[in-house]
């Protein structure tokens, strides 16, 4: 079993006027094959925690270890490439590319054949015809699926998602959550979702953490 362990993680940023201590000593353990939901109010530090798990930012204090190896030891760029991928709240798809091309970009960096793009898209419910469209011409739900496809294309053991169902209707939300659940249970990945949605947090298989006052608690 793979484990992601967070120890006494602290993080501060400046809002231009003063230092904001957004994380004040987060401790948590995430295991493969399980889906986690981190809930909390806006500004509680959920996204910051997610960014650090995805190695999008430097760890200032404390440690994040995957199977006893810290991100610093692995290297942030390598960690992003081999260990962790993120699904952004606003999808962050490359607009001038098609759905398939967006996925191919991730496959390129991971050193996987581009031919896998269609299969990955199919696994999130995007057809071949839809995969050939520019992402701007896809619906919000379809774009979110493409973003998930891109995140899972490189087959990293950790998948994190920031408000993955924020703008989706109920049916689509259910489908997306199903995809994440399958990733955790079938693909044995560590799936961490950040959400303020009670429905997502209340998903039958999700282990819920609450972010409050800069610390994480079950």
């Amino acid at each position, binding site marked *: 079993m793979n484990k992601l362990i967070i120890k006494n993680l602290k993080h501060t940023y400046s809002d231009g006027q003063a230092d904001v201590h957004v994380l004040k000593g987060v401790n948590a353990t995430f295991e493969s094959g399980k889906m986690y939901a981190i809930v909390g109010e806006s500004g509680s530090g959920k996204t910051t925690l997610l*960014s650090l798990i*995805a190695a*999008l*930012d*430097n760890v200032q204090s404390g440690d994040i270890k995957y199977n006893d190896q810290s991100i610093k030891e692995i290297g*942030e*760029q*390598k960690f*992003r*490439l*081999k260990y962790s*991928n*993120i699904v*952004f709240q*606003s999808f*962050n*798809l*490359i607009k*001038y*590319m098609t759905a398939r*091309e967006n996925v*191919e*970009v*991730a496959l*390129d*960096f*991971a050193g996987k054949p581009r031919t896998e793009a269609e299969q990955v898209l199919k696994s999130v419910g995007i057809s071949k015809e839809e995969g050939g469209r520019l992402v701007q011409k896809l619906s919000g739900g379809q774009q979110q699926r493409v973003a998930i496809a*891109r995140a899972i294309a*490189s087959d990293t053991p950790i998948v994190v998602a920031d408000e993955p169902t924020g703008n989706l209707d109920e049916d689509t939300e259910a489908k997306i959550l199903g995809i994440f659940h399958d990733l955790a249970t079938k693909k044995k990945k560590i799936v961490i979702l950040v959400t303020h949605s009670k429905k997502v947090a209340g998903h039958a298989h999700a282990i819920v953490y609450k972010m409050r006052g800069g610390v994480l608690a079950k």
Partner: protein
Amino acid sequence: MFKNMLKRSWLSTIRKPSRTIILILILFVMANMLLATIAIKNSVNSSMQYAKDKIGGVVYLSTDIDKIRAQAEAQIEEGSEGEPVSFTMPTISEELAKGLADSTYIKDYTYSLSTTANASGFTVVETSENQRERQFADAFKNARDQMNSAEEEYNTARDSFNRSNANSGGGGMPSFNFNLNMDIGDPTLTRGDTTVQGINSFDFVSGVEDGSITIFDGTGFNETTENGAVISKELADANSLSVGGELKLKTTADETEQTYTIIGIYQATTENFNYNTVYTNITGAKKLLSAEQLADLNVENVHYYLNSAGEKAAFLAEAAGKYPTLSDDGLKLDIDDSSYQTMVGPIENVGSFANTIMWVVMVAAVVIITLIVAINIKDRRYEMGVLLSLGARRTNILGQIFLELVIVGTIGFFTSLGTSQILAEKMGDDLLQQQIASSQETTNASGTTTLAPTGRGMNAGRGTGTVMMMGGQGSAAQEPIEEIDVRAGTTEYTTLFGAGYLILIIAMVLPSINILRYQPKTILTSKE
């Protein structure tokens, strides 16, 4: 990896047509200007090299008057008041003149020695020069006669006064000696009536190259010609002398008679020319010198003809190595490149303008492309953040941006190959005609044949800049180059692509690094 990077770059290029077209247009214009200026510059360089090869260059060895003047002034300043200042005018020995000529940079050289002799068996021609000399001699004699006469009158008056005063018991009038018979050399006594110029070849006689002195009958001479002399047509006509006849001259030192064979008769068109000038080679001229004069022989008009004007610096360096005390001895080697300057003046300016335009275009291109890239990168911040979040290296992203620029640059550069030749020809022609017209205006304004270009002061300080002969061969008056063959070839294309891609690299580095130095989260957050 490169293939994938290229594919992403290609997608970005074709899926953003308006940005691509703007960039291609800018790069097309830049490439046209760049290629045109490079072609003009290279063409000008070729023409200048051609001019250098054609004209060669003349280096002359002479007395460094400025240095001597400076030395004299220093002596005056250092010495006490009233103390006489003495200095020796440097001279050029024949050995030095020949020694400097022993160089691979020299294709030919000349020097001359001048002396005078007296006509023997013929009469000299009346010329303005000997008229002046005679007038001076007459004036000198008159002055001397008048002074002697005055002295005589004074002495008579004094004697008379003294006698009458002695009778009346008064004092005597002081005796006064004008001393007019003191040792003042008569200028007509030490100079012969015929000027003899010894030179190693008649071809090097000043005036032969520009045609103001031409052989009317017979031939010239060279170093090996024995006892040959070339006389003026006026002297020949006045004395019924002809080619093959004899010319006898007496030395001024001891009246020894030397006989020469007249091998040629020249005609001179120069105003106030001394027709009593006899040209012979160095050996011939030496026969008229005394043993003392030969022992301390000095030469003049020492000119070295370089293989190419471009070898001037190398020759001067070699000479300084061989004769390190040349400057201390009060001598200097200087180049006469007036013909070269005349020939290349207008095109040199064209080259200079082309160079300026080239740099302006390059700087402008860097600035414009940097701004476009900066705007483009700002628009794509999130894309870069996403790529970084997917595990891309920063070099991958820089590579992609560069490849995008290379794609549009290559299209722009290749397109310009078809049009730049026309632009280069038109630009080169216009610039050259402008320069020639400008030079002509200067000529008309100054009333000389100056070809000094206006505006840049390139020939400033050349006095009138008159195209003149400086010692015969190798520096003859030249027409300025009025046409240049502007043609873009492999060299120009290579330079264009090299400079073009370099501009693109410079233009992309700054804005790219400005973004990529941040962590992905910062990039993605700042976008939002």
